[in-house]
């Protein structure tokens, strides 16, 4: 009997010895992040004009023709393609057979131009981040090299830029 009383006392002491009581409740929160990227294009030059013989013989490069700003939460690749194999010619006498390949593009600061085709090509790649991330804001240079094979006139061509994840 004494033992039992002792044990009960021990239990009471044990119960009260914790002193501080704490109770808890929990909740779960989730954030689902989807692949998200956006591309901003701004023309810095506008229409390019080839006016000298040298422009036709050696081509003309327009540096910083346009600016791209990319924000993405995935590593990305920027691709480009011509919407048509030939330029649209306007103006009397303009040639209708000038190919898109007389135009080449490169990222400003790099050395190699890539000629336009109707097949998609990678222009450059970059990393996850906002436009301030290194490589996510850049300018492009455009080179025109028609030679002397085409008549004078106004020529236009649509170039499609596509941003995708790597």
């Amino acid at each position, binding site marked *: 009997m004494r*033992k*039992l009383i002792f*044990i*009960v006392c*021990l*239990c*009471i002491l*044990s*119960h009260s010895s*914790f002193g*501080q*009581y*704490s*109770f*808890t*409740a*929990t*909740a*779960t*929160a*989730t*954030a*689902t*992040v*989807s*692949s*998200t*990227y*956006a591309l901003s294009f701004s023309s810095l030059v506008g229409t390019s004009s080839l006016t000298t013989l040298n422009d036709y013989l050696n081509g003309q490069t327009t540096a910083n023709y346009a600016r791209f700003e990319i*924000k*993405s*939460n*995935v590593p990305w690749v920027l691709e480009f393609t011509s919407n048509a194999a030939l330029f649209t010619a306007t103006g009397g006498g303009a040639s209708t057979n000038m190919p898109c390949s007389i135009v080449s593009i490169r990222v400003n600061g790099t050395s190699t131009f890539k000629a336009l085709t109707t097949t998609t090509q990678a222009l450059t790649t970059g990393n*996850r*981040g*906002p436009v301030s*991330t290194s490589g996510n804001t850049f300018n492009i240079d455009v080179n025109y090299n028609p030679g002397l094979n085409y008549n004078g006139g106004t020529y236009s061509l649509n170039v499609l830029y596509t941003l995708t994840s790597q």
Partner: protein
Amino acid sequence: MKKYLLILSLLLFSFISSFSQNSTNYIQYNNNTALTFNLNTTTLLENTQTISDAFCLHLESKSNTAHIYAKASASTNTTTPMPVSNLVLSYYSTNSTNYSSLNNGDIPLSGTNQLLFIQAKVGTAFNFCYSVKMPAVGYTYAPGTYTFTITFTMSQP
């Protein structure tokens, strides 16, 4: 043998009752809206998202003054872990009139307890409701689902 069983039962009861909630001392989490943030556009990534009046803490503390704390842990294993401080509690409303030290600013959660408020001992249950915010996460985090566990603790000193 019976004696040992009795001893064991008493000790077990003593231990369990020290930590269990009871009818007059408890805290419950009641959600009004699922704590789910779907970040699938640039606008959502670039702006703070708020689930207004997201949940209420339903509590009663008859035995003693209660201090209510919150902390969180992240359980997602990705290449770009999202810190729990991206979850922010913001006081919304209460029907209690016997509270003090209410933190009514934005409370970015952390892994350690932060005081939300102190409820005086009263034999009545009260609700303290909160909004949950997620500040602009930007483009830092890889696509995926990030899961957080928020733990609310009611402590009676």
